[in-house]
């Protein structure tokens, strides 16, 4: 069972309080009607499925109820960081060099 740091509660809590909510930073297009079928497919279905650091969303469903973002290494399952929804996608390159 993972340990997850909720950026709103500022506490590190057991996974059972949280619900996974899929890949992060896939914003819903402002005007879907302007999109081609391929562009719309990309939004709906295409996922990075990263092996390594993965940008993803979680919801503190049994807590503050907030959705937030996280970077988790999908090989070790270890969280590199969590941050509030709407915050910019963090740049990981220095971190990757360090590894």
């Amino acid at each position, binding site marked *: *069972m993972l340990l997850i740091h909720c950026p709103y509660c500022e506490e590190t809590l057991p996974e059972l309080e949280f619900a996974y909510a899929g890949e992060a930073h896939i914003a819903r297009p402002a005007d879907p009607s302007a999109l081609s079928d391929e562009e719309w497919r990309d939004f709906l279905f295409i996922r990075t499925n990263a092996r390594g650091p993965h940008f993803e969303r979680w919801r503190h469903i049994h807590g503050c109820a907030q959705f937030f973002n996280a970077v988790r290494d999908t090989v070790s399952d270890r969280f590199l960081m969590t941050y509030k929804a709407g915050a910019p996608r963090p740049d990981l390159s220095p971190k990757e060099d360090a590894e």
Partner: protein
Amino acid sequence: MSRYRIAGRGRVDHGAPISFTFDGKTYPGLRGDTVASALLANGVHLMGRSFKYHRPRGAVTAGSEEPNALIGTSRGPGRFEPNTRATVQELRKGLVTESQNKWPRLSFDIGAINDRAYMLFSAGFYYKTFMWPKSFWDKVYEPFIRSAAGLGKSPTEADPDRYAARYLHTDLLIVGGGAAGIAAALVAAKSGARVVLVDENPELGGALLSDPGVTVEGQPAWAWLDASLAELRAHGVRLMTRTTAIGYYHQNFVGLCERLTDHLDTPPANAPRERMWRVRADQVVLAQGALEKPLVFDGNDRPGVMLAGAAQTYLNRYGVRVGDNPAVLTSHDSAWYAAFDLADAGSRIAAIIDTRSEIRADLLDAARQRGIRVLQGHTATGTKGRLRIASVRVNPLRGGTVGAGREIACDALLMSGGWTPSLHLFSHTKGSLAWDADSNTFLPDRKTEACQIAGAGRGLWGYAPVLADGVAAGLAAVAALSRSAGARQFAVANDRPGSGVSHTELPTDRSPGKAKAFVDFQNDVTAKDLRLAVREGMRSIEHVKRYTTNGMATDQGKMSNINGLMIAADALAKAPPQVGLTTFRPPYTPTSFGAFAGYLRGQTFQLTRKTPIDPWAEAQGAVFEPVAQWRRAWYFPKPGEDMHAAVARECLATRASVGIFDASTLGKIEVAGPDAVEFMNRMYTNPWTKLAPGRCRYGLLLGEDGFIRDDGVIGRLANDLFHVTTTTGGAARVLNMMEDYLQTEWPDLNVWLTSTTEQWATVALNGPNALAVLKPLVEGLDWDDFPHMSVAECTVAGLPARLFRLSFTGEVGFEVNVPARHGLALWTALMDAGKPHDICPYGTETMHVLRAEKGYIIVGQDTDGTVTPQDAGLDWAIGKAKPDFVGKRSLSRPDIVAGGRKQLVGLLTEDGSRLEEGAQIVLDPNQPLPMKMVGHVTSSYDSASLGHPIAMAVIEGGHDRMGEVVHVPMPDGVKRARITSTVFYDPSGDRLKA
């Protein structure tokens, strides 16, 4: 007392005799015995039969790694379990045990015929045969293979015992209560940290319990143990025995299984049998010690052949000599001490046979003092004895050649192939291992978790270094907790240091192809099986393991993995690390299903939600159905009524006068805020801007993929306030979906969502007399401004209420919402008010029938996650003018706008019979299989009101096929059905206008 039990010796209670039965025979034992130690005390070595060859076997170990001595244990009805390790099961009053995998009896087992034909049962033999004739596989071969395998018998009765679970948060978890673990705890305890020390055995102490001669800090080992444990208790360290760390999960989450009652004569009432501890520790110290390796030689599995360390344990912990004249066969110093202890206890050591030519002088002296014959540089090439070893054949080794063999008589053979660290939990964390060429074994290397490994668990030997290492691990853990503690040193006297060499198969002068030199005892995997696997192209240890089943027995390879690897590597002419080690899997030792299930059994298996009106329904003898997490009244049978009769009566009564229905399970969401209407416009397909306060509207919710997800009637209570209802099963899903869009896509909107599902109890009234029943109870409502599809706040029966006027039946209908605590009161008030009108309570089945008569869909029944609004004939619910809403874009994808989609229609059979829900529809009933299916029946009921059955179906291009006849091929013939509108009852809707 049997001559094998030494009065007063060991940690058993010689003043507390306990008798138990094994295969029907009663044996004496002592409090503190295991079944194995008690049987050995009675001179019984034969305890089981092996898996494949049914060879006679005795206990080879004294612990949880035992592969041979597996027994069935029982304590009355429902309390039988197979495959229990006799070396772990403690004696208790009335314990009944039996041997396994034998017929007719342990001492004479027909299955042992396999042993005669063992050459046929080589590794992977079953892949190569049993293929002809093909039909024989199911009928003959497979049943034979299955019945031959399988060790013990499964329980056949439900288990009356309880199981428990507990979360535990601690600073430091120490796994293993031996010297290293205790030393780590002693220093950590002083740091003020919360410390938990667990051990799988009934007592803490580990190997010290088998080495009473060792002196620590000037005290005999056992006295030092008592003092140390007292000190730990004084510091509030939580000491847990009979508790196995079964799995090491992410971020120091460790599962512990505590065995609470299996050792008790009479467990206290309601006591759980086992408890699963879900531990989260900031730091973990793994001090699990090492496992002794068997030596691999012909006949190394005969009853009486056991690990030297086990014999030493039986002697010193249980006061049991495993034989009168045991021989010792070893490649490691540790076995010499076992020999000395046994000799000092009165056994005549037949010989110490050591494969090494160079032996430590002090060991040789100690042997000489005891008059023990020592054979250095010797190998063992065979054993004799049918159900118990009678002799071992030994040969001198001279420069790689094996000299002439001679028989040495013995009634036990104590072997030691050296020791390998217990790496299992460390491996669960995916920590990497490093091969240590000196000790020929794997040691823990790179860590992935916040843990320390101490003592024999990382290859150390002897109490002095192990205690020091435990201190170091304790200090490291304390430092990692940013606490501090003082170092400690433990002076050790009479230590038992040791080293050794390791082997593949022992050298032999006989044909290795004939040798039955076992590596995996339980699975009967021999060295030659492993070499055969390699010869057949199995190059990875994973392939070798799976091909031979080496290491897949219930000891999970604790006995066999390293020996198997050494032999496979030798056969591949590779270094062991290049061949790799198989992954250790949780649980560390086999763990009962009950312990995993914990409280999740029976009525607490999964939660059942009940409405405030549920007690009334139950008292009325309602039949319930599970709907999502809820239980709902399905129908209310009168005496003698079946479901069909009850539902027909409920339907007719509702259409004729008035019916009452508990709708409390419907999801309810309060959508409030200045942007509420904008939010509703974006979420639902319908337009909401023009909906006036006080009015309500059917709402349709799509997924972004354009398929129907949920629906419900939504009331606008005020400009900024909507009362949304969802399906029963969809409530949580819909709220989560709304929150998702609100928080992540549209955080700018000033609107908030609150679940009010359980704030309100909801009672539906339907029927021509619904108004007459309700009206007298209502206050504070302007009936002149309350047409169909209205909502208002008022009081009903004196209770604050949200009153909806809507209909899911086609009759005049209302849904009364009152605060949940008043739900039952409202229900009874309406029942009373309805008496003059023969008000009829109805359940979900009648609700389904009534709505189907009107063609109202049920999401999840008439839709299946692939249905668009157009498919369902709900285009009218789409706000065409709206630029966007969730799912809109998907509705214009090529295959969504393409023709031939399955569309919802009504169906009436020509012979007036009822169609089966799920029945498939074809256009040409005479085509061969596979038939081209154009749709299926989604809903089908007998309509008492209409006097004939009705059905709804999705059919390709159905909306353009009105009036056409389609065919429904059933096993008993094809039914013809005509496509109709989905509205069967009161198509003009007059009854609503009443």
